[in-house]
């Protein structure tokens, strides 16, 4: 009986190395999920980020129509990649409102002129306050918001072609 005990430490060691080896083979989840899904977006009121579009306030998200809330920035490279797919969502009838993070009006205008403007409203979030209040940790992120300003879904990273039907589906479920 006593003899068997001496294998204990080796067994423990193998168990830990096995665990570490297993974890190394697992894909790393680097996304920080918002824990605000199912909760209402807190109050906010942002000035317009672009002269051609009004700013964005909480009342605009509570007008009864489900929307996509796209958090983006003109300095964000993946936002360029996602622009055509936001355009596709827009053509399919999705209403998209934008929150521009730490951006200048001139840069916003240049970006929209180059990559298209799928937004009905764009608020300027200079201190990332709205971004923090909805639990977003980067750009771009897209939230599906129902007609009462409740967050239904968070899409982290750029919207790609394969995400368009999924986002339209979420909007339809919300009654768009």
């Amino acid at each position, binding site marked *: 009986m006593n003899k068997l005990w001496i294998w204990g430490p080796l067994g423990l060691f193998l168990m830990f190395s096995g665990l570490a080896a297993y974890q190394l083979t697992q894909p790393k989840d680097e996304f*920080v999920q918002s824990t605000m899904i199912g909760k209402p977006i807190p109050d906010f009121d942002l000035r317009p980020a672009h002269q051609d579009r009004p700013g964005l306030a909480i009342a605009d998200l509570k007008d009864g129509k489900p929307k996509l809330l796209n958090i983006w920035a003109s300095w964000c490279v993946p936002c360029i990649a996602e622009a055509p797919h936001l355009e596709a969502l827009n053509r399919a009838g999705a209403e998209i409102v934008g929150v521009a993070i730490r951006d200048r009006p001139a840069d916003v205008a240049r970006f929209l002129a180059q990559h298209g403007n799928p937004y009905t409203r764009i608020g300027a979030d200079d201190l990332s306050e709205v971004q923090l209040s909805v639990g977003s*940790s980067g750009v771009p992120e897209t939230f599906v918001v129902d007609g009462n300003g409740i967050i239904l879904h968070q899409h982290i990273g750029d919207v790609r072609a394969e995400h368009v039907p999924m986002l339209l589906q979420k909007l339809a479920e919300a009654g768009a």
Partner: protein
Amino acid sequence: MMRFILAILSAALIVMPASAQQTLPPAPLAYEQLSDPAQEEAAQALMETLRCLKCQSQSIADSDAPMAGDMRHQVRSRIAAGEEPEAIRAWLVERYGDYVSYAPTVSNTTWPLFAIPLLLLIVAGVIIRRRVGKRS
């Protein structure tokens, strides 16, 4: 060969400024301390235990990421407005989960971390007592 390396290095130098992007100045309270030392101390203590969401494995007090600056502004302005540090932490945890806080908490998933060392201490104590008891 040397020329080739130099050419690549200088090309890298030319390319680099393109990645310097965000031109907006940092948030007012990102690098500015609060005038009340007690409030600043409370803010600093809290900021050291909040995770930078962009850079990860760094606190917002340690990070120069613009978003960490905005989080510091959030912390300092709320403390200046009289909010309790733990209320600010709770506000962030409500949005990002426990992940955003470095402060250890006992929860459904973390209780073994606190229980196992205690258990090991007790087992070690029992073993030592038995051995010492045998000898004497």
